[in-house]
């Protein structure tokens, strides 16, 4: 079976690409490890046009309903291990199968970046987590730290300050970088302490997390606490796209038409070098990628 298009990933970019492909009546397949991507792990969303307020899991459900309305071909829980394009045939290899198509859209997204400090791996899920939305409620009445002062760190802090006894918000650079509207809410919260110029150097504990070691302008200190939320940004999921041009951050390089360096292979959303990683941007990029793939196919025929 030679598909017109294979879409890799089902976050906002992949799902929007699928909706557009279904409406163009393309013969296509979606391969995804899970649905929603990082949107599913987001807390409150207030900047997706049309929704003044929606939670990440709810928006994911809306995305999924929208896509499945068209009765599309769909492989869930399948992880892509390699994508290649040779003389017009794109081959997508997963752990169990190989699929072929005339075009592909890589929309595999990104995953959280790790700190790379002692104790991080040992205490994952034992007090250290990368998902405040998922695990936040388990820390009711505890002392916790959020590492990272960008938007995801601020979002996590806003969620946790309602649940936890105290929150330390830790940022390595001299100031928080996330949106002012969130910073303002955090600065007036009585149970939040903001620590800037501060690096976390180790996670401590026995069975569960009992504290962290920090370094503020060269001064070492140990903070006793029970929860560590790591929110220091993202890494693109692009390991399977080795043959495709990527930048120094391993993001897939695309032009304004979502084309990669390989004819027939397009990419969209957080896996690409598009500036700014946002749900609404990923969704828009997904639609652009399908329209570009559609045009590419039309050119092949003529």
């Amino acid at each position, binding site marked *: 079976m030679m598909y017109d298009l294979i879409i890799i990933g089902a976050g906002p970019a992949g799902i929007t690409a699928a909706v557009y492909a279904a409406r163009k009546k393309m013969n296509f397949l979606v391969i995804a490890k899970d649905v*929603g991507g990082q949107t*599913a*792990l987001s*807390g409150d969303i207030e900047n997706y046009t049309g929704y003044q307020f929606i*939670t*990440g*899991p709810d928006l*994911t459900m809306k995305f999924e309903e929208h896509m499945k309305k068209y009765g599309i071909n769909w492989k869930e*829980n399948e992880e892509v291990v390699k994508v290649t394009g040779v003389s017009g045939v794109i081959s997508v290899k997963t752990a169990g199968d190989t699929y072929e198509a005339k075009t592909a859209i890589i929309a595999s997204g990104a995953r959280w970046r790790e700190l790379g400090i002692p104790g991080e791996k040992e205490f994952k*899920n*034992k*007090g250290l*987590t990368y*998902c405040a*939305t*998922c*695990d*936040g*409620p*388990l820390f*009711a*009445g505890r002392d916790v730290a959020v590492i990272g002062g960008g938007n995801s760190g601020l979002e996590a802090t806003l969620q946790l300050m309602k*649940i936890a006894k105290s929150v330390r918000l830790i940022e390595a650079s001299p100031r928080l970088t996330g949106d002012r509207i969130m910073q303002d809410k955090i600065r007036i919260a009585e149970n939040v302490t903001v620590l800037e110029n501060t690096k976390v150097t180790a996670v401590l504990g026995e*069975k*569960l997390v009992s504290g962290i070691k920090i370094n503020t302008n060269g001064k070492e200190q140990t903070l006793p606490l029970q929860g560590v939320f790591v929110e220091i940004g993202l890494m693109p999921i692009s390991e399977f796209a080795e043959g495709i041009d990527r930048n120094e951050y391993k993001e897939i390089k695309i032009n304004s038409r979502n084309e990669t360096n390989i004819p027939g292979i397009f990419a969209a959303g957080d896996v690409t070098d598009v500036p700014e990683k946002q749900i609404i941007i990923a969704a828009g990029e997904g639609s652009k990628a399908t329209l570009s793939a559609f045009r590419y196919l039309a050119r092949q025929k003529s």
Partner: protein
Amino acid sequence: MGKKVTVYSTPTCPYCIKTKKFLKESSIDFTDIDVSSSTEKSQEMVQKTGQMGVPVVDIDGKIIVGFDKEAIEKALAS
């Protein structure tokens, strides 16, 4: 089958939602424990599993952490 199935979850966690949806679709009765509304229950979960991630599925004493379809099916079939 008649196995006793308990799910420890929070209302916001996407993998908890998926786990429960999967069990419902497979017509498996289960007890849902919302650990965010009870410190006692969240401590029970931590003691049982030695970790703090949700969801946790307890199938007749067999503990599965995270949404692992295959492990759940295997534990139900054994």
